[in-house]
């Protein structure tokens, strides 16, 4: 089983549209949406939710107001601006600011604060036409997005192995922070989606630096390549200078938005330009070593 991640650095480069299109070509596969705070893959793959589970991770403080003496020690020690004192000196916890370190509880002289397990979101196991999909919703402003990503990847991996699938396909989050790092560690191949713009190239350079740190095999795909041919050429030159292979180019097409509005992918339109370009991309990818079927290797027996 090979774990393939679609990732971009910059948001809106086309990760989800490309992931959904590739899913049909890799089917039967297992899908995982690692963009847990703004998951969108389900809008294209129309999963039927089979199971929903709470995601409990880390802790949050709870105040016992009857014990609080209003000394303000908690507010003074908190490094996250997560505590604001009322005029009477009682702490209020700022939504989305607490990182769950427990310093306020551990050092409250009146023992008025307790740390309790925190539900940060929920995750689902669903079925789609391409295979099982694991997806999640991190609660607004919640911490621990990286841990939620790690948890759903683990479930997805176990599912893929149990079902004997050749591929686990991940739709990655934007950026280079904790959910991206959690999406990237240990995958077999990362497909870096970029677009021909100054922002696209800038963000590509940063994500490449990150991916190289993980020693993950990767290639680049240039989406909306014809929007700015000179910038596309700059990206190709940059990749060549870095000895990075460009796996394919996809032209800007209204068909992406039109099919999205109808809740399916461009692959439902055989012969269209996007369908042809994605088929060519898949032909290239499926010839790569990272995409070759593996017999039960030690990684699988361990899991």
């Amino acid at each position, binding site marked *: 089983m090979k774990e393939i991640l679609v990732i971009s650095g910059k948001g809106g480069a086309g990760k989800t549209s490309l992931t959904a299109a590739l899913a049909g070509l890799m089917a039967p596969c297992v899908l995982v949406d690692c963009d847990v705070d703004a998951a969108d893959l389900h809008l294209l793959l129309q999963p039927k939710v089979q199971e929903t589970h709470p995601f409990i991770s880390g802790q949050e403080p709870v105040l016992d107001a009857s014990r609080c003496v209003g000394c303000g020690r908690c507010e003074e020690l908190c490094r996250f601006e997560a505590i604001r004192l009322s005029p009477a000196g009682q702490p209020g916890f700022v939504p989305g600011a607490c990182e769950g370190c427990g310093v306020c509880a551990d050092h409250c002289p009146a023992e008025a604060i307790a740390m309790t397990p925190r539900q940060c979101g929920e995750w689902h196991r669903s079925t789609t036409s391409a295979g099982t999909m694991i997806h999640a919703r991190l609660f607004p402003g919640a911490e621990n997005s990286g841990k939620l990503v790690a948890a759903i990847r683990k479930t997805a991996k176990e599912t893929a192995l149990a079902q004997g699938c050749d591929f686990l396909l991940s739709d990655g989050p934007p950026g280079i922070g904790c959910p991206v*790092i959690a999406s990237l560690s240990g995958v077999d191949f990362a497909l870096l989606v970029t677009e021909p713009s100054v922002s696209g190239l800038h963000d590509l350079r940063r994500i490449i630096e990150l991916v190289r740190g993980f020693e993950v095999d990767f290639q680049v795909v240039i989406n909306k390549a014809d929007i700015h041919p000179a910038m596309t050429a700059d990206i190709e030159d940059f990749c060549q200078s870095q000895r990075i292979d460009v796996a394919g180019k996809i032209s800007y097409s209204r068909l992406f938005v039109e099919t999205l509005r109808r809740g399916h992918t461009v692959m439902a339109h055989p012969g269209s330009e996007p369908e042809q370009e994605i088929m060519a991309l898949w032909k290239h990818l499926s010839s790569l070593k990272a995409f070759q079927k593996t017999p039960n290797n030690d990684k699988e027996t361990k899991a």
Partner: protein
Amino acid sequence: MKVAVASGKGGTGKTTVSLALAAAAETPCLLLDCDVEEPNCHLFTSAEPWRTEGVDVLVPEFLGEGCDGCGSCVRSCRFNALAGFGRKVMVFAEMCHACGGCVLACPHGALREIPYPIGRLEFRHAEGFELITGVMNVGYAMAPPLIRQLKTHLPTSGLAVLDCPPGTSCSMVTSVRDCDFVVLVTEPTPFGLHDLRLAVETLAELKLPCGVIVNRAEPGVPLIHDYCQEAGLPILLEIPLSRQIAETCSAGGGLLDACPDLKEPLQALLAQTLPGLLAGRSVAS
């Protein structure tokens, strides 16, 4: 007035709108690029930084002397950033949330805090406004400390625009917190609508007022309008779907270069619409 420009979905045009707002402003404006993982505002100005400031967090360093192997520090850490081996403690700085709990927990003074670099702030005199960009070091996972440091440069009065990271998790919340108004930039696609709903839900929890800019707007696609009407959200501006805008911005140009007609509506947004909405809100509350 502190105006945050956010969106659930990435790539909807937050940076384009932030830069256009800052460029159109008739009063002095400070633009903060809070998308510290992938900051882009500086790519649209030719100005070089006139000042750069390193940003550190405080992580523990094990001093050794005094440690009796009691394990208080290891037990106090909820992030598994410390491991104890007898009278020796190992620190995993990249796991550390810099809460300071371990140093407080050690009864023997065997730990102290030392700076750990996580990124930098870059200050630029851009064309018509000041820009401060947060840049997180590649490989570091946690953006909020850098965003908090960036936001210490917010002025107490005057206009500030904050270009926020995508999503609805801690980085976005840290960026929008304590702003006066949040401008949500979206596009009329199911992705845009879905992520707009998530962002609106998040801002409701934070009790922050917001309005919507529809980017890549197309006549006859009511998706966002229908939702905004239902949710009682004002549509502040529509930016038309245009290949010319896409091409100009791809090459590092601004929205107002491609579409000078938008300057007046953006000025009206800053000078009239947003102050009006905020005044109405304070009367209502």
